[in-house]
């Protein structure tokens, strides 16, 4: 996989957010987003720890405590299916199967082309339109088999054409 982040880029992200402990989560989220594989590599964790003056064990504690972070590389697009009870009763289990059928993967798995990872997530605050899937900052609700297929197709298109976002395609 092409390495998207460099030391300079990471330093810029830290500076842009403000190099302080209050900005730590924002910094790490942005590094994760910019990594191309939705995770924070150890190399960048060490750099952030150095910059905000935090022992690496404390930074690792933060990285592993908050559910949005991953220290293991994931797909370019992480599909998060909410499994909280309001979505569960609107059959989120079936949505998992639908995505699974489209992509050929199960929960916590990544497609062979490293494009998609399928995950469960906690409530994302869209309970009125359950069942819900979140990809990056986009939240898709009232899902059906057709919508699931359309979503997957649109992200494949984003990847193919190098678009910034799938928002306009759906």
């Amino acid at each position, binding site marked *: 996989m092409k390495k998207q982040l460099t030391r300079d880029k990471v330093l810029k992200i830290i500076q842009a957010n403000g190099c302080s402990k209050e900005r730590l989560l924002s910094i790490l989220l942005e590094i994760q987003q910019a990594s191309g594989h939705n995770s924070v590599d150890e190399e960048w964790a060490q750099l952030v720890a150095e910059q905000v003056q935090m022992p690496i064990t404390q930074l690792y504690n933060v990285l592993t*405590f908050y559910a949005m972070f991953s*220290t293991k590389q994931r797909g370019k697009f992480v599909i998060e299916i909410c499994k909280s009870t309001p979505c569960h009763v609107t059959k989120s289990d079936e949505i998992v199967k639908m995505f699974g059928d489209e992509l050929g993967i199960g929960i916590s798995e990544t497609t062979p082309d490293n494009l998609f990872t399928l995950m469960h997530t906690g409530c994302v605050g869209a309970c009125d339109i359950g069942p819900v899937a979140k990809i990056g900052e986009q939240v898709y609700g009232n899902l059906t088999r057709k919508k699931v297929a359309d979503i997957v197709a649109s992200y494949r298109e984003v990847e193919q054409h190098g678009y910034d976002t799938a928002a306009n395609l759906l």
Partner: protein
Amino acid sequence: MSHMNDADPNQPITVTIDGISVTVPAGTSILEAAKKVGISIPILCHHPDLSVRANCRICIVEAKGQRKFKTACSTEVWQGAEITTNSKTIREARKTVLELILAEHPRECLECIRNGSCELQKLAQDFGIKEVAFTPSRHVGELPIDDIHLAIVRNPNKCVKCGRCVEVCQEVQTVRAINTAHRSHRYEISTAFEKNLEETLCVSCGQCVAVCPVGALYEQDETAKVWAALDNPDLHVVVQTAPAVRVALGEEFGMEPGSIFTGKMVAALRRLGFDKVFDTDFSADVTIMEEGHELLERIQTEGTLPLITSCCPGWIKFAEEMYPELLPHLSTCKSPQQMFGALVKTYYAQKTGISPEKIFVVSIMPCTAKKYECARTEMNDSGYQDVDVVLTTRELAKMLKQANVSVRDLPEETFDDPMGTSTGAAVIFGTSGGVMEAALRTVYEVVTQKPLGNLDFTVVRGLTGIKEAEVELNGQTIKVAIANGLGNARSLLEKIKEGQVDYQFVEIMACPGGCIGGGGQPFGTTMAKKHERMKAMYQVDKKLPIRQSHKNPSVVTLYKEFLEQPLSHKSHELLHTGYASRNIDKEVKQ
């Protein structure tokens, strides 16, 4: 209960605990108040020398008018409180909490290193646990054991997540090699990125081991190596014992903390089969000779000051990792343990005609970092590994029990010559301020050429984390500082780094209280026990006929016959060393 903080701190508070009235100062915890009336509320995560975490929830009690239970360790008493520690409700709730811990714990006590000294085992016993109603939710016993570190082994399967080790490493020692990670059922105590301890900034001080209530952290057991050496008829096995061992070993055999066990310890070591029983205190006197002269030389030639002591390997590693720019301040003297090893395989070998490759040196230490120290690659100036194996106080006790030695019934015996005679100055090496005082007792007479009237430098004594003093030396004022515990050392070093202080001589010991509180001492060490051990050291010192290192006749002979004089070429070859910056992890210095 915010009204608790409104209490006048000077007003005593009267509460009832299990119907018994007790009056205590404001700010007293329920736990402490209960002790005063003979009630021992059970605890697990609590430790008297650490801050309160209140996360095990074993010490829960009921308070009248409160819906939820209170944890006795973290709750201060309030006027008129009615506490119940022993109702059916509370006993059942506590038992449920304990059962939940036991359900996830490998219950193989008979094969565990803490069999008989485990705090969880004691709780299960005291609670009368007959069965655990819960089946494990995680796969118990399947986590990998981290045992490639030279000094410390981590078995996360046995961790009860009390957090004491994290507290000690993060807040007290400020090494920060381990921390909590993840959350929920994955909550664990580990290194960053699940590395082996070997790959972290761990300095082997073993304070984590010292506070662990169970068998999740322990020292590398090297007793098998020592048995093999003792059973090998071709080897001449020699043992040295650190000063802090003799005032703590007795606790492993039921003696009160601070019992002076020297004579029986020597006899016991002979029963194990050591060919010679020597005393690290001998080489502590040598250390004073070398370091005292080094101090004078630096003062006279305006060398790098302050001179900082170097007998503590935990401190050395800490300096190499966190303060490499201050390495020039370190004394080039090796520790007494390492000086001993180098001398045994040269001086003693030559004196006796025994070939050094047949000499096996064992060292009994209150310390886990000494295991790391003896294996440092540069520690072979004799031409061989100077010290072959280090055993902790606990490991020695284990060997003695395996050998059926009834230690308490043994007669008092004395160390062997030529490396068994020592002084009061040497024995106090084991407690914070001891190295400083020993050095001053010699340096004073070397510089003034006058006898020192009062040998007791009480101003440098005590377990306080940072001490400062001024000593008059031939019309010159020598400013000294002493730190014990690496967090305290760090504060001092920051000041030295910033040039805010002008000490000439600094003593640093990694463990709180000094070696008497080392990572290899009997489990259950507390500040209170350290106080007793410390008192014992000064008692031994007071009673010894010779209390100054330069007056040790065996040391005088050593220089006459072998080393010539302090800081000689031979001394430098065998007894001095160098250090290296280990700032390779890109860790941040605070």
